[in-house]
């Protein structure tokens, strides 16, 4: 499968601060790729480099097969970019704004525009400065979807929005962008989980992992072992186990490379026979909380060695 976005060893420094540290990212065509990570991880920085809003210090990035540094002008007619802190022409009425953008896009679809306006319940006669935050995001998204972009890039689109508006945005996004690749950065893991196909976890300017969401959810399990007598924690454990703890007759940990047979064998070998072993699937939120607490994905850590 071709990649809609690809970066190689991307480095970005702001003075002495290294915002990106040799980032290698690949977003397959057709994917809904969620870029997640804590504040200051470098999500907005990488998106701005991809959109050629500013340049990288080192490394290279390709967007739709084009070097990101060459991305300007007509190339943006196939890219829709929406950011939470984008400065829109506040003085314009929404209908004027949409009318102004139309001639820029050969593929602008008036019918789709009307559908989006109607679906998002946008007040066309209001100036952009008078729209609420949610309305502004919806207006920005409508203006970025109406020309059937091949790539949609959304930088923290859900921040500060109420659940209803989030739902509307996601619904609109999914319905109208079936032929697009979507890159979305967000804190909102619960929302991401509902529609992302791929996920990348960015922390301190480095991509800790990047994979399909189903694979990620499959490989994480909360493991709970119940013994007849209070057990002792082992002195050594596999690198893929996280947050190993004990309480009364129970040992708990998180397995980051779950495989039914292999994990069962490792559990037996390290902890002995347990009265009961339970493998519980984890939500995306639980996985990221576990990883954030651990500092890094132990599997990746081992792989890096």
């Amino acid at each position, binding site marked *: 499968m071709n990649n809609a976005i690809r970066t190689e060893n991307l480095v970005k420094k702001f003075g002495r601060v290294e915002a990106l540290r040799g980032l290698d990212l690949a977003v397959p065509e057709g994917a809904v790729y969620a870029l997640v990570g804590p504040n200051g991880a470098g999500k907005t920085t990488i998106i701005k480099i991809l959109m050629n809003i500013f340049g990288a210090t080192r490394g290279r990035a390709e967007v739709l097969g084009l070097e990101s540094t060459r991305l300007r*002008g007509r190339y943006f007619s196939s890219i829709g970019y929406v*950011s939470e802190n984008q*400065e829109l022409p506040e003085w314009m009425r929404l209908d004027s704004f949409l009318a102004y953008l139309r001639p820029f*896009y050969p593929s602008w679809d008036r019918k789709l525009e009307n559908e989006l306006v109607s679906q998002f319940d946008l007040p066309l006669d209001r100036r952009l400065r008078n729209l609420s935050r949610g309305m502004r995001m919806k207006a920005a998204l409508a203006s970025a979807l109406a020309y059937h972009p091949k790539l949609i890039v959304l930088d923290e689109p859900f921040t500060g929005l109420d659940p209803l508006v989030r739902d509307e945005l996601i619904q609109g996004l999914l319905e109208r962008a079936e032929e697009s690749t979507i890159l979305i950065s967000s804190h909102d893991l619960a929302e991401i989980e509902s529609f992302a196909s791929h996920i990348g976890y960015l922390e301190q300017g480095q991509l800790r992992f990047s994979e399909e969401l189903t694979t990620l959810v499959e490989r994480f399990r909360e493991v709970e072992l119940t013994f007849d007598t209070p057990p002792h924690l082992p002195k050594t454990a596999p690198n893929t186990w996280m947050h190993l703890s004990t309480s009364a007759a129970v040992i708990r940990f998180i397995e980051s490379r779950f495989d039914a047979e292999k994990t069962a064998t490792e559990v037996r070998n390290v902890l002995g026979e347990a009265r009961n072993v339970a493998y519980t699937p984890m939500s995306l939120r639980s996985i990221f909380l576990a990883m954030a607490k651990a500092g890094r994905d132990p599997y990746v850590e081992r792989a890096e060695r």
Partner: protein
Amino acid sequence: MRQVLNIFLKDVRHHWRECAASIALVAAFGWNEMRGWLHDEVFGAGIGIGGLFSSRFLSGLVVVLVPVAWSLVVVRVIQGESLVGDRQFWVTRPYEWKKLLGAKVLFGLTFVNLPLLVLDVFLLAKAGFRPTDYIVGLFWMQLMIVLYFMLPVAALATVTASVVQMLLALLIIALYGIGMGLLSDQIPSSSFSDPADSLTAALFFGICLAVIWMQYARRKTNKSRLLIAGLAGVCVLILVATPYRTLVAREFPQLNLQQEPPFQLALLPAEKVDPETAPEKEEEKEVEIRLPLSISGFGAESIAAIDGFMVDLEAQDGLHWNSGWKSPGLSLFPDQKSTRIDVTLKRRAFERLRSSAVRLRLSIAFTLFHDTNRREFVTPAGVFMMKDVGLCSTESTYSRGIHCLAPLRRPKSLLISADMSMSTCPVLEGESPATHGEIARDWTRGSGSEPAEFGISPLKTVDLYLTDWNGAASRRSTGICPGTPFVLSNPEPVGRNQTVLQIDGFRLSDYRLPSPKFTIGSVSIGAR
């Protein structure tokens, strides 16, 4: 073109108020200009609250407000798609930078140049000139406005994100200008006609264009700002490191031995100063020296414009002082017998050199003119057309001279000479009638040979007043009234040279003036 028009129309919708205000001010400027022709009472306005709010004050305000309004239009329209920052929506839209720039240029041409062009055509026609005769000059004026006004304003607007930032940038530039002025005062010869001007101008336009290109094509704000700072630094370097004397020597070569000097200069005895009435003041930091000079040997149709002079003093004990090249703005005419050059020394230098006889070396850089195309003219009554000048009148002036409106530029070189005894003006109280042969002159010299001068109005004021260049202690004015005959001519430059007057045994203290009078920089000038 579609994108250019789309952006342009959006800008018109957004900035129509600024545009309307700008056009209204241009119209007000035109009205003010016409009013000036009709009511030539320049010094008539009263002062005080009433005066402040008089129409004259407001019309003066209009002249200042027009460029301010233009600046606002240019800045606002450029910053409408700000090139500074990383949050603007348009940078991730299919804007072609050339088309965006094209739309902004179109906007500037439409709302700054076009109204001005229309006004200029209207004013020319209203003043009695046929605008079609001045097409090249009219477009030249627009080009000057673009180059000298809109280009730097646009360059600054591309590296600032708001009007406040722009004002801050202008404040920094003003402080820089003051600093350059102070530095220039410290560098000998730098105030003399600046030979590095063309280099500085080329750099200036080059950097402005480069900044605009870099911002629109690449949005490299930091690099663009560095470029502007670099220009400021280079200008300082040019000011400090220009070999002024070498350039003056090249521009004004010494006359060789075979060449007959066009005029001779000799140092006259010092003018008598009564020490009782003008005592020497020890606390004064500067001392003024006056060098009275006699002139002889002038050809009948020759005129010399003194472009610069340099005074060099050398004592026998090796002490040395040099004024550097200065611009006196003097002219020498065939019947002129004397002139004088005033130089200011720091008191410390004066004290070191005053006690002994020194060697004076006065270098004079001049342009020699040949007085050509002489024709006689008798001042008509009412409004009349004077060839090579424009529409003139003796009636609308507050003084006895000829007031003219010249289309697009002042005459390149126009000399009027008259025998003052032929003046038809009534002799005023306190005046004595001039004697026969007393020649008075006025020499108007426009700069360059471009088809138009830089400015908003297409009509340039030329005031011709006869001045006695060879009078006694002070200049004496005479009048031009209907019926006064005079000779018009167009002196043309024939060469530039340098001549040196060397005097041994010069006693500095003999030529000291009692106290500094009006000074320009470190030099004061005078002629008679």
